[in-house]
């Protein structure tokens, strides 16, 4: 079986009769089996995927024009996305055994186009983490070096694509959770504008930050998935009602782009030397192709992470109050009264990182501290947003390394949350502002680990961002 990198390749071979959906599914299932020790999948929908493949092969035979746009496309989904009749647990004990009563809007729209969902993949608990280690299922490992983390929180989605167990994987991105693992695993990771895709059926972490994102081997796939999933939805009042462009049909970029980068980011302390060199090499290549790449002053870089952790933990502490052991999820068997049901179920059900963030969020929202922390961070969010949008008024894109450091050893940062949080410094900006961003693989670190570069564009400029990305990779 060749390694397919785009839906067009798969569909061409299917339509030419070179392969069948059933063969494709068997191949991916054998890949999942062969890479079990990486711990990417928490559940495999083997029989269901086989049945669907069989039905699709039949559908193609009977009426080739009736197949959907994702015919033959096999995907995996992060364990925070609802898929009707299937379990979803956010990699947490508190949702042990929970089964979705409906599908996320994004998933529902993909299914309508004949996508095959092969399984549910690991992540950090409630998408809180940068390593895919904070999971009730244990850590997922990076296939480039299994002693290293795959990044997070959509770490296993990146691994699932990296090891060719599916064509595309769906992740979610609250502060870089799609882009950072994509960079760590050498695949493409794309996060759309806030509100471009409905959040209905995405287990909430930070509701003013969360977005569904796509991990893939090609920009074409990211574009088609966005085109299908995006757009207004009666189940999410915050989703944008703007018309959805045909992203997949406008992937050529024939202009010269004007790109900004921050010297404080690329020449700052804490950036790995190899990543710095690869990034500047990439900038030189862009210049040679006639694009303008200039250093721009951005004075708020060091304030992004502090503001982000105040705001997301506040939102998380509110969002996660629904896990109370009453209507669904884990209930402590030792609880004797209602107060104990709440306290003991939550204490037993949540892992340490989730508790840490709930406690911090509760603190910044509590009487006496609200103005000093929560309100202050919202004001800083406006400063960061206004300045970023101002820069994007003068430039097509902002360029940055996706991560200042390559994938690190499993276990290395688990007891050092502050250092781990700071490693998200380059990805969080896009979520703070709500703009689209993509991570593209640009080479390897001298230690052999993949390195990614990130491009951000203005709100709802996905078409331009994807077309440019497609033209350079």
């Amino acid at each position: 079986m060749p390694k397919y990198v785009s839906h067009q390749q798969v569909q061409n071979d299917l339509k030419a009769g070179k392969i069948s959906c059933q063969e494709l599914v068997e191949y991916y299932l054998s890949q999942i089996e062969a890479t079990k020790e990486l711990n990417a999948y928490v559940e495999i929908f083997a029989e269901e995927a086989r049945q669907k493949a069989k039905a699709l092969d039949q559908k193609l035979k009977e009426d080739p024009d009736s197949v959907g746009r994702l015919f033959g496309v096999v995907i995996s989904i992060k364990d925070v996305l609802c898929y009707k009749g299937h379990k979803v647990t956010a990699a947490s004990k508190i949702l042990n055994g929970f089964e979705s009563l409906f599908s996320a809007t994004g998933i529902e729209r993909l299914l309508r186009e004949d996508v095959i969902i092969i399984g549910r993949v690991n992540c950090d608990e409630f998408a809180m983490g940068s390593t895919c280690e904070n999971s009730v299922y244990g850590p997922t490992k990076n296939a480039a070096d299994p002693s290293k983390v795959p990044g997070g929180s959509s770490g296993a989605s990146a691994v699932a694509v990296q090891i060719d167990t599916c064509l595309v994987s769906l992740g979610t991105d609250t502060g870089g959770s799609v882009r950072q693992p994509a960079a760590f695993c050498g695949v493409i990771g794309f996060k759309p504008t806030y509100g471009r895709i409905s959040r209905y059926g995405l287990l909430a972490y930070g509701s003013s930050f969360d977005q569904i994102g796509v991990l893939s081997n090609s920009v074409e796939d990211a574009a088609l998935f966005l085109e299908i999933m995006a757009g207004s939805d009666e189940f999410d009042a915050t989703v944008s009602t703007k018309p959805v462009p045909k992203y997949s049909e406008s992937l050529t970029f024939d202009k010269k782009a004007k790109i900004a980068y921050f010297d404080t980011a690329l020449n700052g302390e804490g950036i790995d030397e190899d990543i710095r060199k690869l990034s500047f090499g990439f900038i030189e290549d862009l210049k040679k192709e006639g694009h303008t790449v200039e250093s721009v002053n951005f004075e708020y870089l060091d304030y992004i992470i502090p503001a982000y952790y105040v705001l997301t933990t506040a939102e998380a502490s509110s969002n996660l109050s629904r896990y109370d052991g009453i209507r669904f999820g884990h209930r402590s068997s030792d609880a004797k009264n209602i107060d104990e049901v709440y306290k003991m179920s939550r204490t037993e059900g949540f892992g340490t990182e989730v508790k840490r963030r709930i406690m911090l969020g509760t603190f910044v929202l509590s009487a006496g501290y609200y103005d000093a922390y929560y309100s202050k961070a919202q004001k800083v969010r406006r400063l960061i947003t206004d300045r970023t949008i101002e820069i994007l008024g003068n430039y097509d894109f902002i360029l940055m390394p996706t991560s200042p450091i390559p994938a690190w050893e499993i276990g290395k940062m688990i007891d050092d949350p502050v250092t781990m949080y700071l490693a998200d410094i380059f990805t969080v900006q896009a979520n703070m502002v709500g703009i689209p961003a993509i991570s593209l693989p640009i080479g390897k670190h001298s230690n052999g680990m993949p390195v990614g570069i990130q491009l951000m564009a203005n709100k709802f400029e996905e078409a331009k961002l994807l077309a440019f990305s497609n033209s350079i990779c």
Partner: protein
Amino acid sequence: MQIDEKLISRLENLARLKLSSEERHKISGDLNEILKMVGKLEELDTEDVEPLVYINEEVNSLRIDEVKHQLSNEKALKNAPDKDDQHFKVPKVINL
């Protein structure tokens, strides 16, 4: 700002958590480290800045208030840890 024992207990209660003494110790240490990092925000003058609350640009997505997309009792109770035919069950709340 320093998180002390008393404040940790207050937060635990507000968050409906009951940490073990080990977790308490670890989390209060972590929170103090995180707050030290967050203290950096004080360097910025935000006197005349309006807080940014909503990231979506469209205001008020309104719809007709009508009953639809309802779950059946059976489905709504499907994931409940303790239930009878029609209700979620909890330990006795009112003591007569």
